């Protein structure tokens, strides 16, 4: 509330010529000092760059020498420098929330060309700021404790890396993974580019470390079902699905898997290229080494018979009566490392995947090339036997395509080069790569491209138009083969190239339930479904929700080193928080005046941050200050006006409006309108 004792300093920034080029800043400063003196303005200055240290020192000096107790800076958007000027005030001993930054750049000089009108508007904006700041009250940031445990969602390489960093620093981690084993897609790959390291060989030591680390609690075959709370204090419910195997009794001997008579197509780990048992471990190096019984396909569950696994289990670890278990954990921070799913290549009819047997996706090929895969590492056609004499690798399947996904999937070019090398290594086949561009930007990536060129892979620059088995009359001698029809753009000719096998480098997509995951954790996803980072350049692993971070492909397509780096970055941020033991939150919050709350609950469902609690016993609503982001939705919705915002109270907003309307559009003082 304004006491009339306000001593206000007004600072108009030139921002070089950004503002000064359109707004007459000297005039605005002069006017403010004069016309707003009655409102408490004791000093009004203009300066070339207020955000520079010289500009900030002006403020600090005036606070000290002139006893200012309010500051208004007219410059760029608060998004840019609100923190800067609040910092300057704080250094001079003035509560930072007694400083108001109004934008005469984004709101005035950048959007208008008429100098006179812009100057008048700038004056109005400054007046608005001055009127408002009088209603400001000093605020203290909220301090919340930080629970030392962390939740990592997703047990791929990003999740594992994050978990290990935090665990190695001595703090507990809950690692949740929806598949029976951690490892993610990296466990499926054969070799990794550009070093051609065996993927499993570099991954499994990390998996084992994560599985045996005293600070990591693995929750595999599990899903997060509920998240409550706020940064530093999350309460997370994890549903551990029934494995039908007693974890503590299982030794991982694998007899149940061996004896299980039921086999189904393995759509997860083998990418559909092989089979698995119904009682199964997804792969031999699974962590934890405890199988799972696939209830939907189990003979016992559908017909009541079999139970071979139970008969043969040497430790009596099979328990068909096992139920899903709910575990509730308290954590201080969350990292989403939910990874990617492969673009469904069946959607592109003209590529024939699913119709033509010898068209494979990238993941199918990884499994084929893998020595532990369904073909023991032999590159063969769908018949499981024949070696191809000519293989085509198609880039950009479902990526860079407005018909499917607009974006580039980042890893497919390198992956395609890798495939070319692997085919050459395993067979005598002629290899073609069909590309639009070769994206080989990373370390040793272009060198790898050179290597693949040296090995004799044929590169055709052209986006494949069609993969077909419909032979033309002059192709009668190619019976049984598939034709790739493409324009060789560098030669300027359409070509029909007969091949035996085609590999589609399909793009990466967010998991199908990405949007639900976003809602569960209170974070936003882009229209493509990737998690949105707080700032794409300067804060790439944090989200707009305090306490929730993301790492790896959950944020968008990226390779393994980037995912690992993301994990380390998120871990570093979290470890910093944990070791500080508490965190200061912005005090700009909504508060409910309980006396005026009628318990209508209109606001309850409107809060995008789930910050509203309803007390059934007292029939009143309360806003959780830690979760509240100060968006103002509930403030506007409350029919009784019972909710106000610290930092955006009715008094502050109404007085700002008064200030804005002080002048007419041409800059003349407005005559008072009769009430």
């Amino acid at each position, binding site marked *: 509330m304004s006491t009339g004792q306000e001593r206000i300093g007004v600072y108009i920034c030139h921002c070089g010529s950004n503002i000064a080029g359109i707004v007459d800043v000297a005039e605005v400063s002069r006017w403010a000092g004069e016309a707003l003196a009655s409102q408490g303005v004791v000093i009004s200055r203009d300066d070339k760059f207020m955000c520079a240290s010289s500009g900030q020192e002006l403020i600090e000096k005036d606070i000290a020498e002139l006893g200012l107790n309010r500051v208004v800076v007219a410059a760029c958007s608060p998004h840019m420098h609100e923190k800067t000027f609040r910092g300057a005030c704080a250094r001079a001993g003035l509560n930072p929330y007694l400083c108001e930054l109004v934008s005469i750049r984004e709101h005035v000089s950048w959007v208008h060309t008429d100098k006179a009108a812009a100057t008048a508007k700038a004056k109005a904006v400054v007046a608005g700021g001055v009127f408002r700041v009088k209603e400001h009250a000093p605020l203290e940031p909220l301090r919340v404790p930080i629970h030392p445990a962390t939740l990592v969602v997703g047990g791929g390489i990003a999740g594992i890396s994050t978990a290990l960093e935090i665990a190695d620093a001595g703090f507990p981690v809950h690692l949740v993974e929806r598949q029976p084993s951690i490892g993610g897609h990296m466990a499926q790959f054969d070799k990794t580019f550009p070093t051609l390291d065996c993927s499993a060989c570099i991954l499994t030591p990390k998996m084992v470390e994560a599985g045996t680390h005293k600070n990591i609690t693995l929750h595999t075959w599990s899903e997060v079902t509920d998240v409550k709370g706020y940064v530093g204090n999350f309460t997370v419910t994890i549903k551990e699905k029934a494995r039908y195997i007693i974890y503590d009794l299982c030794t991982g001997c694998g007899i149940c898997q061996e004896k299980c008579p039921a086999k189904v197509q393995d759509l997860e780990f083998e990418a559909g290229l092989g089979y698995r048992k119904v009682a199964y471990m997804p792969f031999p190096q699974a962590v934890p080494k405890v199988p799972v019984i696939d209830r939907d396909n189990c003979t016992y569950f559908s017909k009541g018979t079999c139970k071979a696994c139970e008969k043969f289990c040497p430790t009596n670890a099979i328990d068909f009566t096992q139920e899903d278990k709910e575990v509730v954990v308290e954590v201080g921070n969350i990292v989403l490392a939910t990874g990617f799913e492969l673009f469904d290549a069946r959607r592109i009819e003209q590529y024939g995947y699913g119709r033509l047997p010898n068209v494979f996706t990238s993941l199918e090929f990884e499994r084929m090339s893998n020595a532990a895969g369904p073909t023991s590492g032999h590159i063969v056609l769908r018949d499981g036997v024949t070696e191809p004499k000519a293989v085509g690798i198609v880039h950009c399947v479902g990526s860079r395509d407005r018909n499917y996904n607009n974006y580039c999937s980042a890893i497919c070019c390198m992956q395609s080069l890798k495939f070319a090398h692997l085919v050459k290594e395993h067979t005598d086949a002629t290899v073609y790569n069909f590309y639009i561009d070769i994206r080989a930007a990373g370390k040793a990536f272009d060198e790898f491209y050179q290597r693949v060129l040296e090995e004799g892979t044929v590169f055709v620059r052209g986006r494949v*138009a069609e993969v077909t088995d419909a032979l033309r009359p002059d192709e009668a001698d190619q019976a049984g083969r598939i034709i790739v029809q*493409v324009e060789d753009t560098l030669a300027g000719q359409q070509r029909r190239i007969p091949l035996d096998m085609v590999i589609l480098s399909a793009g990466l997509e967010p998991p199908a339930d990405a949007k639900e995951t976003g809602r569960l954790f209170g974070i936003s996803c882009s229209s493509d479904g990737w998690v949105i980072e707080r700032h794409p350049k300067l804060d790439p692993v944090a989200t707009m929700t305090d306490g929730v971070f993301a790492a790896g492909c959950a944020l968008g397509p990226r390779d393994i080193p980037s995912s690992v780096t993301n994990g380390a970055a998120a871990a570093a941020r979290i470890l910093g928080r944990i070791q500080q033991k508490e965190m200061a939150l912005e005090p700009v919050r909504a508060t409910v005046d309980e006396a005026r709350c009628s318990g209508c609950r209109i606001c309850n469902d409107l809060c995008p941050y789930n910050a509203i609690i309803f007390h059934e016993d007292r029939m009143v609503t309360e806003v959780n200050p830690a979760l509240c982001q100060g968006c103002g939705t509930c403030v506007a919705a409350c029919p009784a006006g019972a909710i106000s915002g610290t930092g955006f109270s009715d008094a502050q907003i109404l007085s700002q409006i008064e200030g804005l309307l002080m002048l007419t559009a041409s800059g003349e003082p407005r005559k008072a309108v009769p009430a």
Partner: protein
Amino acid sequence: MTATQTISGTTRGHRNFMAEVASLTAGDSRLEMCIQCGTCGGSCPSAADMDHTPRMLFAMVRAGMKEQVLRSNTPFMCVSCYFCAVRCPQEIHIPDVMYVLKAMATNEGRVPDRTAPDFSRTFVNNIHRYGRSFEVGLVLRHYLRHYLTRLPGMAPMGIGMVTKGRIGFRPHQIKGRDGLRKILVRAAELEAEA
């Protein structure tokens, strides 16, 4: 506006030609979005008979090579099957652009071969006269001018079509012929105004 080329010089007015073509195409052709991926050239059923693949033609349009573009047989070899349009990752309206180039080449007298424009003109003249197409008149005129040597070999087909009653010897005339002509004349005026 012609594009001048010399051994040492470069073509001029490139931005204008692309813009010219785009502005003549109905709706938003998105021609400027082309990333030269070659899907169109790869999909085209008649690409083998074209002087330039569709992609190459658009590269030439972008480069302002107006002469070469209008002398290319490519637009006339386009069968407007729309394979390119549905597969183009940039959603460019390729067949619509091809029609514009056909018209431009014809109207500026640059066509490489008169067969297609003559066929179109004869077809269209029939429409002006009758309001409907007149196959017999069209085919006879066209073959006499362009495919004289084909005629004997086509006799069996011709006789077959006649005996099976698939030839209309008299052109059907619509009642609103004059009205249609008024519409087309006005359309021509509006086109010139643009």
